[in-house]
Protein backbone atom coordinates (compact mmCIF):
# COMPACT_ATOMS: atom_id res chain seq x y z
CA UNK A 1 0.00 0.00 0.00
CA UNK A 2 1.57 3.26 -1.03
CA UNK A 3 -1.23 5.62 -0.09
CA UNK A 4 -3.23 6.31 3.03
CA UNK A 5 -6.90 6.83 2.22
CA UNK A 6 -8.46 10.12 3.26
CA UNK A 7 -12.22 9.98 3.83
CA UNK A 8 -14.48 12.98 3.74
CA UNK A 9 -17.17 12.93 6.41
CA UNK A 10 -19.37 16.00 6.28
CA UNK A 11 -17.14 18.94 6.98
CA UNK A 12 -14.33 16.76 8.35
CA UNK A 13 -11.58 14.69 6.81
CA UNK A 14 -10.88 11.32 8.43
CA UNK A 15 -7.52 9.59 8.12
CA UNK A 16 -6.99 6.18 9.68
CA UNK A 17 -3.42 5.00 9.63
CA UNK A 18 -3.39 1.23 9.76
CA UNK A 19 -0.03 0.35 8.29
CA UNK A 20 3.45 0.98 9.57
CA UNK A 21 4.44 4.45 8.49
CA UNK A 22 7.65 4.89 6.60
CA UNK A 23 8.99 8.30 5.76
CA UNK A 24 7.83 8.41 2.14
CA UNK A 25 4.31 7.38 3.11
CA UNK A 26 4.24 10.18 5.66
CA UNK A 27 5.36 12.70 3.04
CA UNK A 28 2.66 11.50 0.62
CA UNK A 29 0.07 11.76 3.37
CA UNK A 30 1.11 15.34 4.10
CA UNK A 31 0.80 16.24 0.41
CA UNK A 32 -2.54 14.53 -0.08
CA UNK A 33 -3.98 15.90 3.13
CA UNK A 34 -3.12 19.53 2.51
CA UNK A 35 -4.46 19.24 -1.03
CA UNK A 36 -7.67 17.65 0.22
CA UNK A 37 -8.14 20.42 2.80
CA UNK A 38 -7.82 22.93 0.01
CA UNK A 39 -10.21 21.23 -2.43
CA UNK A 40 -12.84 20.02 0.01
CA UNK A 41 -13.02 23.10 2.18
CA UNK A 42 -13.03 20.96 5.29
CA UNK A 43 -12.62 22.71 8.64
CA UNK A 44 -11.50 19.73 10.65
CA UNK A 45 -9.04 16.87 10.13
CA UNK A 46 -9.02 13.78 12.27
CA UNK A 47 -6.00 11.48 12.22
CA UNK A 48 -6.47 8.15 13.97
CA UNK A 49 -3.19 6.48 14.94
CA UNK A 50 -4.61 3.89 17.33
CA UNK A 51 -3.23 1.06 15.18
CA UNK A 52 0.31 2.40 15.30
CA UNK A 53 2.71 0.74 17.74
CA UNK A 54 5.74 2.72 16.67
CA UNK A 55 5.97 6.44 15.99
CA UNK A 56 9.46 7.71 15.32
CA UNK A 57 10.69 11.29 15.59
CA UNK A 58 10.14 11.90 11.88
CA UNK A 59 6.55 10.80 12.12
CA UNK A 60 6.10 12.90 15.25
CA UNK A 61 7.40 15.99 13.50
CA UNK A 62 5.22 15.22 10.51
CA UNK A 63 2.09 15.12 12.65
CA UNK A 64 3.10 18.42 14.16
CA UNK A 65 3.70 20.06 10.80
CA UNK A 66 0.47 18.68 9.31
CA UNK A 67 -1.36 20.34 12.22
CA UNK A 68 0.37 23.65 11.60
CA UNK A 69 -0.27 23.51 7.83
CA UNK A 70 -3.95 22.74 8.17
CA UNK A 71 -4.33 25.46 10.78
CA UNK A 72 -3.02 28.02 8.32
CA UNK A 73 -5.63 26.69 5.88
CA UNK A 74 -8.31 27.20 8.55
CA UNK A 75 -8.79 23.56 9.51
CA UNK A 76 -8.07 22.12 12.94
CA UNK A 77 -6.25 18.79 13.15
CA UNK A 78 -6.93 16.35 15.96
CA UNK A 79 -4.69 13.32 16.51
CA UNK A 80 -6.60 10.55 18.23
CA UNK A 81 -5.96 7.16 19.78
CA UNK A 82 -2.29 7.35 20.63
CA UNK A 83 -1.09 4.23 22.45
CA UNK A 84 0.47 4.66 25.91
CA UNK A 85 3.80 3.24 24.74
CA UNK A 86 3.86 5.63 21.80
CA UNK A 87 3.10 8.59 24.06
CA UNK A 88 5.88 7.63 26.47
CA UNK A 89 8.37 7.22 23.62
CA UNK A 90 7.51 10.58 22.07
CA UNK A 91 7.83 12.35 25.43
CA UNK A 92 11.16 10.63 26.11
CA UNK A 93 12.31 11.80 22.67
CA UNK A 94 11.39 15.33 23.73
CA UNK A 95 8.55 15.60 21.21
CA UNK A 96 5.48 16.74 23.09
CA UNK A 97 3.85 17.97 19.85
CA UNK A 98 2.89 21.45 20.99
CA UNK A 99 0.00 22.89 19.06
CA UNK A 100 -1.42 19.51 18.10
CA UNK A 101 -4.87 18.77 19.44
CA UNK A 102 -5.31 15.29 20.83
CA UNK A 103 -8.26 13.14 21.86
CA UNK A 104 -8.70 9.66 23.26
CA UNK A 105 -10.62 8.14 20.36
CA UNK A 106 -12.39 9.03 17.12
CA UNK A 107 -15.63 9.65 18.98
CA UNK A 108 -14.12 12.21 21.34
CA UNK A 109 -12.09 13.73 18.52
CA UNK A 110 -15.24 14.30 16.48
CA UNK A 111 -16.90 15.85 19.49
CA UNK A 112 -13.93 18.14 20.02
CA UNK A 113 -13.93 19.29 16.39
CA UNK A 114 -17.67 19.88 16.42
CA UNK A 115 -17.50 22.06 19.53
CA UNK A 116 -14.51 23.96 18.21
CA UNK A 117 -16.17 24.61 14.87
CA UNK A 118 -19.44 25.52 16.58
CA UNK A 119 -17.73 28.01 18.85
CA UNK A 120 -15.67 29.49 16.04
CA UNK A 121 -18.87 30.19 14.12
CA UNK A 122 -20.71 31.62 17.09
CA UNK A 123 -17.92 33.42 18.89
CA UNK A 124 -14.82 34.45 17.02
CA UNK A 125 -12.83 35.10 20.22
CA UNK A 126 -12.96 31.49 21.34
CA UNK A 127 -11.85 30.03 18.03
CA UNK A 128 -8.11 30.18 18.56
CA UNK A 129 -7.93 29.46 22.22
CA UNK A 130 -5.13 27.00 22.81
CA UNK A 131 -5.24 24.83 25.88
Amino acid sequence: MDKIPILKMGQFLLVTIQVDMHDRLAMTLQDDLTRMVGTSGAHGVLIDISALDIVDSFMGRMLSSIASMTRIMDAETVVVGMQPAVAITLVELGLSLPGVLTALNVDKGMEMLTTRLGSSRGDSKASHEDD
Partner: protein
Amino acid sequence: MPKTDKSTIQMIMARKKEILKAWLEAQYDSKSIRLDLINKGELATQSEDFLDAFVDAIKTENLTDISAPEYKYVVQMLGDISRSRTRQGFSPSETAMYVFSLKDTLLHFLQDAFSDKPEELNKEVLRFSKLLDSLGLLTFEAYTHSREDVIQRQQQEILELSTPVIRIWKGVLSVPLIGTLDSARTQTIMESLLQQIVATESSVAILDISGVPAVDTLVAQHLLKTVSAARLMGAECIISGIRPEIAQTMVNLGVDINVKTKATLGEALKEAFSRIGLRVVRSEAAPERS
Protein backbone atom coordinates in the same frame (compact mmCIF):
# COMPACT_ATOMS: atom_id res chain seq x y z
CA MET B 1 52.55 -22.84 57.22
CA PRO B 2 53.07 -25.09 60.24
CA LYS B 3 51.63 -28.50 59.73
CA THR B 4 48.67 -29.31 61.89
CA ASP B 5 49.38 -31.87 64.48
CA LYS B 6 47.85 -35.07 63.19
CA SER B 7 46.89 -36.05 66.64
CA THR B 8 44.50 -33.08 67.01
CA ILE B 9 42.50 -34.03 63.99
CA GLN B 10 42.61 -37.67 64.90
CA MET B 11 41.43 -36.78 68.37
CA ILE B 12 38.50 -34.81 66.93
CA MET B 13 37.62 -37.65 64.59
CA ALA B 14 37.81 -40.19 67.36
CA ARG B 15 35.74 -38.17 69.81
CA LYS B 16 33.24 -36.84 67.27
CA LYS B 17 30.27 -38.38 69.08
CA GLU B 18 31.32 -36.79 72.36
CA ILE B 19 31.92 -33.46 70.69
CA LEU B 20 28.50 -33.54 69.11
CA LYS B 21 26.90 -34.34 72.45
CA ALA B 22 28.78 -31.59 74.24
CA TRP B 23 28.04 -29.12 71.44
CA LEU B 24 24.34 -29.89 71.51
CA GLU B 25 24.32 -29.45 75.28
CA ALA B 26 26.13 -26.16 74.93
CA GLN B 27 23.53 -25.07 72.38
CA TYR B 28 20.63 -26.13 74.59
CA ASP B 29 22.17 -24.35 77.56
CA SER B 30 22.97 -21.13 75.76
CA LYS B 31 20.62 -18.18 76.14
CA SER B 32 20.42 -17.69 72.40
CA ILE B 33 18.82 -21.05 71.75
CA ARG B 34 15.38 -20.40 70.34
CA LEU B 35 13.44 -23.56 70.99
CA ASP B 36 10.34 -21.58 70.09
CA LEU B 37 11.65 -21.35 66.53
CA ILE B 38 13.44 -24.66 66.02
CA ASN B 39 12.89 -28.03 67.71
CA LYS B 40 15.56 -30.14 69.38
CA GLY B 41 15.39 -32.99 66.92
CA GLU B 42 15.88 -30.70 63.96
CA LEU B 43 18.75 -28.97 65.70
CA ALA B 44 20.43 -32.30 66.50
CA THR B 45 20.26 -33.54 62.88
CA GLN B 46 21.43 -30.20 61.59
CA SER B 47 24.35 -30.13 64.02
CA GLU B 48 25.34 -33.71 63.28
CA ASP B 49 25.37 -33.09 59.55
CA PHE B 50 27.37 -29.93 60.00
CA LEU B 51 29.91 -31.59 62.29
CA ASP B 52 30.34 -34.43 59.79
CA ALA B 53 31.01 -31.95 57.02
CA PHE B 54 33.34 -29.95 59.24
CA VAL B 55 35.38 -33.03 60.25
CA ASP B 56 35.56 -34.09 56.60
CA ALA B 57 36.95 -30.68 55.75
CA ILE B 58 39.58 -30.53 58.49
CA LYS B 59 40.69 -34.07 57.59
CA THR B 60 42.51 -32.44 54.67
CA GLU B 61 44.60 -30.57 57.24
CA ASN B 62 43.68 -27.26 55.74
CA LEU B 63 42.71 -25.07 58.66
CA THR B 64 43.23 -21.65 57.14
CA ASP B 65 41.64 -21.27 53.74
CA ILE B 66 37.87 -21.73 53.85
CA SER B 67 37.54 -20.81 50.17
CA ALA B 68 39.33 -24.08 49.30
CA PRO B 69 37.25 -26.81 47.61
CA GLU B 70 37.30 -29.07 50.68
CA TYR B 71 35.27 -26.45 52.58
CA LYS B 72 32.74 -26.07 49.80
CA TYR B 73 30.19 -28.28 51.46
CA VAL B 74 30.70 -26.69 54.92
CA VAL B 75 30.27 -23.19 53.51
CA GLN B 76 27.21 -24.23 51.57
CA MET B 77 25.61 -25.85 54.61
CA LEU B 78 26.33 -22.84 56.75
CA GLY B 79 24.76 -20.58 54.15
CA ASP B 80 21.63 -22.73 54.05
CA ILE B 81 21.36 -22.83 57.84
CA SER B 82 21.85 -19.09 58.06
CA ARG B 83 19.26 -18.39 55.38
CA SER B 84 16.66 -20.64 56.93
CA ARG B 85 17.28 -19.03 60.31
CA THR B 86 16.84 -15.57 58.83
CA ARG B 87 13.43 -16.60 57.62
CA GLN B 88 12.60 -18.24 60.95
CA GLY B 89 13.30 -14.96 62.72
CA PHE B 90 16.64 -15.56 64.45
CA SER B 91 18.75 -12.49 65.14
CA PRO B 92 22.23 -12.32 63.54
CA SER B 93 24.03 -13.05 66.81
CA GLU B 94 21.72 -15.97 67.55
CA THR B 95 22.60 -17.34 64.12
CA ALA B 96 26.31 -16.84 64.65
CA MET B 97 26.17 -18.45 68.10
CA TYR B 98 25.55 -21.75 66.30
CA VAL B 99 29.15 -21.74 65.08
CA PHE B 100 30.62 -20.01 68.11
CA SER B 101 29.19 -22.61 70.49
CA LEU B 102 30.97 -25.29 68.43
CA LYS B 103 34.16 -23.32 68.86
CA ASP B 104 33.77 -23.25 72.64
CA THR B 105 33.14 -26.98 72.72
CA LEU B 106 36.10 -27.78 70.49
CA LEU B 107 38.40 -25.61 72.58
CA HIS B 108 37.35 -27.53 75.66
CA PHE B 109 38.29 -30.79 73.99
CA LEU B 110 41.60 -29.35 72.85
CA GLN B 111 42.35 -28.25 76.38
CA ASP B 112 41.59 -31.73 77.54
CA ALA B 113 43.85 -33.36 74.94
CA PHE B 114 46.84 -31.05 75.38
CA SER B 115 46.63 -30.43 79.10
CA ASP B 116 50.26 -31.53 79.53
CA LYS B 117 51.64 -29.60 76.52
CA PRO B 118 50.79 -25.89 76.99
CA GLU B 119 52.71 -24.73 73.92
CA GLU B 120 50.98 -27.18 71.61
CA LEU B 121 47.68 -26.24 73.15
CA ASN B 122 48.28 -22.57 72.52
CA LYS B 123 49.11 -23.19 68.88
CA GLU B 124 46.13 -25.42 68.23
CA VAL B 125 43.68 -23.17 70.06
CA LEU B 126 44.77 -20.20 67.97
CA ARG B 127 44.41 -22.08 64.71
CA PHE B 128 41.03 -23.55 65.51
CA SER B 129 39.60 -20.33 66.83
CA LYS B 130 40.70 -18.51 63.68
CA LEU B 131 39.04 -21.10 61.49
CA LEU B 132 35.80 -21.07 63.44
CA ASP B 133 35.77 -17.29 63.60
CA SER B 134 35.88 -17.08 59.85
CA LEU B 135 33.06 -19.61 59.62
CA GLY B 136 31.10 -17.52 62.12
CA LEU B 137 31.60 -14.43 60.01
CA LEU B 138 30.29 -16.40 57.07
CA THR B 139 26.96 -16.85 58.85
CA PHE B 140 26.76 -13.08 59.29
CA GLU B 141 27.37 -12.59 55.62
CA ALA B 142 24.76 -15.11 54.56
CA TYR B 143 22.34 -13.57 57.03
CA THR B 144 22.83 -10.10 55.57
CA HIS B 145 22.44 -11.39 52.04
CA SER B 146 19.15 -13.05 52.71
CA ARG B 147 17.94 -9.96 54.58
CA GLU B 148 18.81 -7.88 51.55
CA ASP B 149 16.82 -10.22 49.34
CA VAL B 150 13.81 -9.80 51.60
CA ILE B 151 14.17 -6.00 51.57
CA GLN B 152 14.48 -5.92 47.81
CA ARG B 153 11.36 -7.99 47.37
CA GLN B 154 9.45 -5.76 49.74
CA GLN B 155 10.64 -2.68 47.88
CA GLN B 156 9.29 -4.12 44.64
CA GLU B 157 5.98 -4.85 46.31
CA ILE B 158 5.74 -1.35 47.76
CA LEU B 159 6.47 0.07 44.32
CA GLU B 160 3.58 -1.85 42.87
CA LEU B 161 1.24 -1.08 45.74
CA SER B 162 2.00 2.60 45.99
CA THR B 163 0.81 3.71 42.60
CA PRO B 164 -2.95 3.35 42.50
CA VAL B 165 -4.86 5.02 39.72
CA ILE B 166 -8.38 5.70 40.92
CA ARG B 167 -11.37 6.45 38.75
CA ILE B 168 -13.24 9.02 40.81
CA TRP B 169 -15.88 9.83 38.23
CA LYS B 170 -16.81 8.75 34.76
CA GLY B 171 -14.03 10.32 32.72
CA VAL B 172 -11.98 11.53 35.70
CA LEU B 173 -8.95 9.67 37.06
CA SER B 174 -6.96 10.52 40.14
CA VAL B 175 -3.44 9.50 41.08
CA PRO B 176 -2.59 10.20 44.72
CA LEU B 177 1.19 10.35 44.88
CA ILE B 178 2.72 9.48 48.23
CA GLY B 179 6.39 9.38 49.12
CA THR B 180 9.51 10.27 47.24
CA LEU B 181 9.28 10.18 43.47
CA ASP B 182 12.25 8.59 41.77
CA SER B 183 12.67 7.51 38.17
CA ALA B 184 11.52 3.93 38.70
CA ARG B 185 8.37 4.98 40.55
CA THR B 186 7.52 7.72 38.08
CA GLN B 187 7.86 5.23 35.25
CA THR B 188 5.42 2.86 36.96
CA ILE B 189 3.03 5.73 37.67
CA MET B 190 3.19 6.97 34.09
CA GLU B 191 2.57 3.53 32.63
CA SER B 192 -0.35 2.70 34.89
CA LEU B 193 -1.93 6.13 34.43
CA LEU B 194 -1.74 5.92 30.64
CA GLN B 195 -3.12 2.40 30.62
CA GLN B 196 -6.01 3.46 32.83
CA ILE B 197 -6.71 6.45 30.58
CA VAL B 198 -7.19 4.04 27.68
CA ALA B 199 -9.13 1.49 29.72
CA THR B 200 -11.57 3.97 31.28
CA GLU B 201 -11.68 6.48 28.39
CA SER B 202 -10.99 9.27 30.84
CA SER B 203 -10.25 12.74 29.56
CA VAL B 204 -9.10 14.33 32.82
CA ALA B 205 -6.46 13.05 35.24
CA ILE B 206 -5.69 14.66 38.59
CA LEU B 207 -2.15 14.15 39.89
CA ASP B 208 -2.29 14.86 43.60
CA ILE B 209 1.12 15.56 45.11
CA SER B 210 -0.04 16.34 48.67
CA GLY B 211 1.91 13.30 49.87
CA VAL B 212 5.15 14.10 48.11
CA PRO B 213 7.60 15.48 50.69
CA ALA B 214 9.86 17.38 48.32
CA VAL B 215 9.69 18.49 44.72
CA ASP B 216 13.05 19.07 43.08
CA THR B 217 13.78 19.70 39.41
CA LEU B 218 13.96 15.99 38.71
CA VAL B 219 10.54 15.28 40.22
CA ALA B 220 9.09 18.27 38.35
CA GLN B 221 10.56 16.94 35.13
CA HIS B 222 9.07 13.51 35.76
CA LEU B 223 5.68 15.08 36.41
CA LEU B 224 5.89 17.15 33.24
CA LYS B 225 6.71 14.07 31.19
CA THR B 226 3.67 12.30 32.56
CA VAL B 227 1.51 15.33 31.80
CA SER B 228 2.82 15.57 28.23
CA ALA B 229 2.34 11.87 27.57
CA ALA B 230 -1.23 12.04 28.85
CA ARG B 231 -1.87 15.09 26.68
CA LEU B 232 -0.57 13.25 23.60
CA MET B 233 -3.18 10.61 24.24
CA GLY B 234 -5.90 13.19 24.55
CA ALA B 235 -6.28 13.54 28.30
CA GLU B 236 -5.72 16.72 30.29
CA CYS B 237 -3.86 16.64 33.59
CA ILE B 238 -4.40 18.80 36.65
CA ILE B 239 -1.76 18.84 39.37
CA SER B 240 -3.19 19.38 42.83
CA GLY B 241 -1.89 19.48 46.37
CA ILE B 242 0.76 22.13 45.81
CA ARG B 243 1.77 23.07 49.34
CA PRO B 244 3.27 26.51 50.07
CA GLU B 245 6.76 25.10 50.54
CA ILE B 246 6.53 23.18 47.26
CA ALA B 247 5.37 26.32 45.45
CA GLN B 248 8.31 28.20 46.97
CA THR B 249 10.92 25.61 45.97
CA MET B 250 9.49 25.33 42.49
CA VAL B 251 9.65 29.07 41.90
CA ASN B 252 13.11 29.29 43.47
CA LEU B 253 14.34 26.43 41.28
CA GLY B 254 12.89 28.15 38.24
CA VAL B 255 10.71 25.19 37.36
CA ASP B 256 8.01 26.30 34.98
CA ILE B 257 5.12 23.89 35.06
CA ASN B 258 2.97 24.72 32.10
CA VAL B 259 -0.08 22.89 33.35
CA LYS B 260 -3.16 23.66 35.38
CA THR B 261 -2.31 23.50 39.08
CA LYS B 262 -4.60 23.67 42.09
CA ALA B 263 -3.89 23.95 45.78
CA THR B 264 -6.28 21.23 46.90
CA LEU B 265 -7.73 18.04 45.52
CA GLY B 266 -11.22 19.49 45.95
CA GLU B 267 -10.42 22.45 43.75
CA ALA B 268 -8.92 20.12 41.16
CA LEU B 269 -12.04 17.97 41.22
CA LYS B 270 -14.18 21.05 40.67
CA GLU B 271 -12.00 22.00 37.72
CA ALA B 272 -12.18 18.46 36.33
CA PHE B 273 -15.96 18.50 36.57
CA SER B 274 -16.17 21.78 34.73
CA ARG B 275 -13.90 20.38 32.00
CA ILE B 276 -16.21 17.46 31.38
CA GLY B 277 -19.24 19.72 31.63
CA LEU B 278 -20.57 18.70 35.03
CA ARG B 279 -21.80 20.96 37.79
CA VAL B 280 -22.25 19.98 41.42
CA VAL B 281 -25.35 21.48 43.01
CA ARG B 282 -26.68 21.08 46.51
CA SER B 283 -29.87 19.11 46.48
CA GLU B 284 -32.80 20.99 47.95
CA ALA B 285 -33.97 18.06 50.02
CA ALA B 286 -30.64 17.38 51.69
CA PRO B 287 -30.29 18.66 55.23
CA GLU B 288 -27.86 21.52 55.75
CA ARG B 289 -24.49 20.29 56.84
CA SER B 290 -21.89 22.40 58.46
